[in-house]
């Protein structure tokens, strides 16, 4: 059975690195894995979606609507946008950060109100202030790793495996803050 993780956020938030960390944790457990990334134009502050799929044999690298076991959302509006992709009974982890998209900045549209309440009514969600966790850990850019920490608890992969992958993936000078952020997320 394939397990599907979808990571959504805003270009520049570190979703790509998050997908690679998750991918490497998954392969160390001996699964087949496919990760679909987005590079190029859509990374420039636009909606960014990456998929991590693992299991005995994975074919399609993309996840369709209603098929994500876990959605890791780095921003509230992007969480809301991703809602149709969540599997019935799936889990969504939402960072409570708000980043206004350009149509909101120009005043053409409003940022939707009460997203967390609306999501809670339709899905199993955990909301996390990952920015505060990252700040407390000493690096605001560790938002992605804090969120992975929250998610890691919902997987069968052991804490040590995650820590090992972080040590292999994160550059030395950011490692301490990232390990702290991961732990804080994991223990939340």
């Amino acid at each position, binding site marked *: 059975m394939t397990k599907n993780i979808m990571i959504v956020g805003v270009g520049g938030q570190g979703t790509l690195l998050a997908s690679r960390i998750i991918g490497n944790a998954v392969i160390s457990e001996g699964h087949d894995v496919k990760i*679909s990334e987005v*590079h*190029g134009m859509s990374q420039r*502050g636009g909606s960014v979606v990456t998929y991590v799929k693992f299991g005995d044999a994975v074919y399609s690298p993309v996840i369709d*609507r209603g098929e994500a076991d876990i959605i890791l959302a780095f921003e509230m509006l992007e969480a809301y946008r991703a809602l149709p992709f969540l599997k019935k009974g799936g889990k969504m982890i939402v960072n409570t950060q708000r980043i206004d998209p*350009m149509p909101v*900045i120009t*005043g053409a549209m409003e940022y*939707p109100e009460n997203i967390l309440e609306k999501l809670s009514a339709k899905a199993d969600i955990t909301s996390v202030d990952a920015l505060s966790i990252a700040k407390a850990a000493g690096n605001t850019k560790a938002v992605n790793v804090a969120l992975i920490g929250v998610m890691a608890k919902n997987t069968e992969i052991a804490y040590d495996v995650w820590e090992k992958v972080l040590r292999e993936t994160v550059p030395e000078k950011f490692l301490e803050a990232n390990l702290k952020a991961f732990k804080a997320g994991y223990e939340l």
Partner: protein
Amino acid sequence: MKKLLIGNDAVARGAWEAGVRVVASYPGTPSTEITECMAKYPEPHVEWSTNEKVAAEVAIGASIAGARSMSCMKHVGMNVMADPMFTVSYIGANGGLVFCVADDPGMHSSQNEQDSRHYAKASKIMMLEPADSPECKEYTKAAFELSEKYDTPVIIRLSTRVSHSQGLVELCDRVEQPLKDYEKNPAKNVMMPGNAIKRHVVVEERMAALAAYAEECPFNTTEVNTDKIGVITSGVAHMYAKEALGDKVSYLKLGMVYPLPEKLIKDFVAKHEKVVVIEELDPVIESHCRALGLEVVGKDAFTLLGEYTPTMIKKVVLGEEGAEFAEIGETIPVRPPVMCAGCPHRGTFYVLKKLGLTVSGDIGCYTLGAVAPLASVDTTVCMGASVSGAHGMAKARGAEFNKKLVAVIGDSTFMHSGITGLIDIVYNKGNNTVIILDNSITGMTGHQDNPTTGFTIRKEPTKQVDLELLAKAVGVERVVVADPFDLKDFERVVKEETEADEPSVIIAQRPCALLKTVKYTGHCKISDKCKKCKLCMKLGCPAISVRGDEVVIDETQCNGCGLCVNVCPFGAIEKED
């Protein structure tokens, strides 16, 4: 050992293992990482060439000289290199010659959705299409062998989902390939009519041999599970089909997409009651089937547009719906890509918009100057078209129109194909104003060096093209360097240059804010002097937004570039450390 690699890195790995010696490319999403990854291997010569045509010619020269060589590009880059490609089809390959092209169904980062398989047929060059990362490596290695065996270039066709999806790839060692002998051979390598007429005969013989090979090519595989429904697929569409249809149908997966097999397809169709062709973009395989007189389902049931999904395939082939899902139930704002906080182009487009100019645009991050609120760019066609297009506009509408017209083009794009347009302007007595947006890097594709940066792909220092001298050398006498963040001065310069009755070049110089060498510090903050005029909102900076009645700057988005400080007429924005 197995490693997670994106398809592009797997192509590079395959080329490296096959002993490639020369790789030349121009960046273009989704193909860029192939060449970037190639440069991590010490053995081959790897370069960013000035454009795809130059890159392909470098690879062709290397092949003729006896080296295994490769050139990689995005689909529209293949248009640029099509000229040498069509003729090297006649010349063939001495050292294995591989062109790798990445299509972009769904147009994640492209200006059109063309299907490069048509090029294989048009240029009579064999084409392979891998479906995932392991196949990317395997097919690329094989492409060099096939190129040498059949004396032909080989095209590897990728698509965004193959290029940018990671899969587990078995790593092998590099096998060094000695240079093949180089002998002067005009009959093969000098393509003038007398020789080319004879070579065309060879090409047609080769096509017949390749068509025979297609019947037995190990990349064309059949999996028979039923006599009811068979599907014919290639590339990532095969992966979608496998996921959607499992063992409920039979598969003919075509890893070699040109030339296509005849007997293999006929036999497969004959074994099934119904056959469906599943291919993204154009009906290439389907047309081949129809030409063979075979009844298949294809684009009558599937779209010509965008990417496919397993759910779409399940619905068409089995008539089954996809998984249940929750609806959002309201219209929510889209989040299109925007210029980054601190982007130097923001100052440029703010001024161009303020002056109400017609802007002939080009390909790069600055294409985003077309979207609100800057909404300044009028046209975007292809690499280089800003300069030559502006010349055409001015010739069509005359001198007064030209005084309100500029062309904008990035430094790398200018090197790629803007300089030829500029020469055309000077030569043909044009008076255009061309703004070179010099941000010291190739931005949109993710920071590649180019002839104006002074570094090679391996970050070795090299000669740096001096844009100012270059513009002067082709005959532009008015060349001004200006900082687009000094809004007042930049506005003055643009006004002066567009008024001038001669061609002029403005070099808008400020580096990309994402470069490691750019060190903006602190962040900007709105003080109580704010009159809520919202002039700063006209910058379209992702860090500035309105919450309730207040204009606020998001610290996590702001990098302290200070452009908004320059815009505020009340001095209400201050920089904090």
